[in-house]
């Protein structure tokens, strides 16, 4: 039974309940409703996406009482590109430096923020894509990371 428990922790996929137009699974492990960011870089649940159609990907993050001043979404691709999402929803090159991060101006409600990440066809991207979500609070950037992988 302990084997089952251990592997269940590893393997259980939790269906993402908000904001998806195609099947997306969050994997593995962490309690999805309580995902938080931190100043060291939290490991968030990975997302498995069906890339045969347009992908809409959002992620809701608990703020834990933080009152962020700015929100950031960046991506690191295996083809070497480093990108960030701007507040209009476009992905633009990013040099990796904090000073050049663009505030996505997401709305906060109920001590949570929902990051809009993708709404496009990504079938021709180089996978996995590593997504970083962040917000600035009290002069610190708290952030978390997850991979977007195609369902296989």
């Amino acid at each position, binding site marked *: 039974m302990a084997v*089952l428990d251990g592997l269940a922790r*590893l393997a259980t996929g939790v269906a993402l309940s908000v904001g998806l137009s195609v099947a997306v699974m969050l994997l593995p492990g962490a309690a999805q409703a309580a995902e938080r960011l931190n100043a060291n870089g939290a490991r968030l649940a990975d997302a*498995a996406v069906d890339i045969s159609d347009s992908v809409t990907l959002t992620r809701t993050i608990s703020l834990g009482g933080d009152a962020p001043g700015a929100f950031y979404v960046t991506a690191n691709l295996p*083809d070497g590109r480093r990108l960030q999402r701007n507040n209009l929803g476009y992905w633009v090159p990013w040099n990796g430096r904090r000073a050049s991060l663009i505030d996505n101006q997401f709305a906060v409600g109920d001590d949570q923020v929902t990051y809009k990440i993708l709404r496009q066809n990504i*079938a021709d991207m180089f996978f*996995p894509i590593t997504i970083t979500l*962040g917000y600035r609070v009290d002069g610190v950037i708290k952030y978390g990371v997850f*991979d977007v992988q*195609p369902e*296989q």
Partner: protein
Amino acid sequence: MIAFARRLVQGLRALPAALALLMLAPAVADAQENLTVAEVQTVIAQAAAEATARGMPATIAVTDRVGNVLGVFRMTGAPDAMRVVSGRTVGLGFDFARFGLDNLIVPLGGIPAIPTLRLVPTELGAIAKAVTGAYLSSGGNAFTTRTANQIVQENFNVGELGQPSGPLFGVQFSQLPCSDLSSRFIGGNVNDFIGPKRSPLGLAADPGGLPLYKNGVPVGGIGVLADGEYGIDPVITDVDESDDEMIALAGTRGFEPPVDIMANRITVEGKTLRFTDKGMSALRTDPGNAPAFAAINGTVGNLIMVRGYNAAAAIVRGRAFGTPESGVRPETTGIYAPTQPFVLVDGNNNNRYPPRAGTDGILTAAEATEFVRQALKIAFAGRAQIRRPLNSFIQVTVSLVDTNGAILALARTPDGPMFGTDVSLQKARTAAFFSNPVAAAALRAADANITDLGAPFPNYARIGPYVDAVQAFVGPTALSDGIAFADRSGGNLSRPFYPDGSQDNQPGPFSKPIGIWSPFNVGLQLDLVLPQVVTHILFTLGISPTDTPVGCTPLNPTLATGLSQIPNGIQIFPGSVPVYKNGVLAGGLGVSGDGIDQDDMISFLGAHKGGLAANTGIGNAPANIRADTLTPQGTRLRYVNCPFKPFVDSDEQSPCKGK
């Protein structure tokens, strides 16, 4: 007359220089060749016939030169699982976390039903062997997994007590399935056949993995697993008749390397390398008369799909190395002129790693270019250690990273062995990371991110104790005081004896003690990546619904990259230096593909000459902060070791001295 003779000698000496200059613009390293579907079928059929003759049904994998899996064939009755075992006394029970990969087990079956336990799938071993044969070889050298076996153990040669470790000690933990550099097969994606591909278990040292050639051009590798064990050969003074090796050898008939570049024609430190223990004459079949593939497919065995490596139980053609569809092609914009290296490209033929400025704001793109350009120039001028014919220039990959581990530039000489791509990046990152004052804290913090599988599996090894050990061994500020660690320095601390080869001495602080050390249980290098390797194995079995994430280690990700500073694992054999700008750590320059002294020289002189060319304060670490200022346990750490008289176009004897 004397003057004439002198001019003649000078002229002859200048000839290699002229050749080297020509080689700065090697338009094509080799003719472009690839394996066709029919040829892959032939390779498999020849191997299967030999396996049948030996009564050893096998799993046979074929890859192309950049690691694409072209076909995997499992014969009826072949073991579907294998023991990962070194044959040493360390493989106790099922304790894979304590004992590395030795006796690694993973569950069989899906969630929630787990009917039995079994070992690692044989197809992963076969693929790892094929990748190894392909990746270690080039147009100038043909190496096998038996060659690998010879150069990754604690003594070189194996069994020669008192001798230092193998020159590629640690290379087995490269090309990992979690590497951010090595690409993955997705299925239906434009990047599906872009190389270099990952290997499910890293590189193999178990005989039975050989390279494949067409018309003298490397086109891939074959890997065979028939005996149910994925191990090493701890005794090389005898001549084995390994079934795995003989079956693979049969598969290579018609696809053999040129005799002159086989490992047994190449020496390292005066020791001749091994290709195979026995040759074609020991085969029990004539591969040329093997039944056609169509006659055995579905009867003798079947093609199989391997999750994460191919789309179906089918054979696909190989990609010709050097063409965009292989993911490796000539650089065409002239950014590294006068050299004309190869670069990695994506499925849209875009250079994946053109020179970029550092994410930490230290190095500019121009400085990154200069580091790599100068390193390439050293390679093109240097005399290769592992290549035939003698006096060939050096073939390597050069990687430059910043302090976050972000890739600032990557380029390679045209015919560098593929393994050096991922390894050069590992080396660059290892030097940058271990020279960074954040290293100790970052390693300690990693333990909070390690998740054990739960009983009955033992817990994974923790990383913090290695920091305790190195600070007790080197000094209380180790890895937090900004001492510059070349990969040779960190490698000194990663051997099961310190100093290396001193058989009665204690281990280095990053190594397991010799009593539980094996090539599958080395210490920090493996413990940093083992959880992700296990996750990947579970994925291939269908137990884990998604693959291992990008980034091999449990270290916290940086904001700049979303990855840790060492996301394809660390490397512990020489060939990199940290680089600095006006005395401030700026990153690491890593080189891999030739002898370790050659790799050392290219990184060290590349950093030095890059600094001279850029004239912006970049270059090597100040001498007073290099690791060779330290004498832990009374023995001085090494920094780099450059070969004597290393250039084909110059009589210069000690080019690194005083720099």
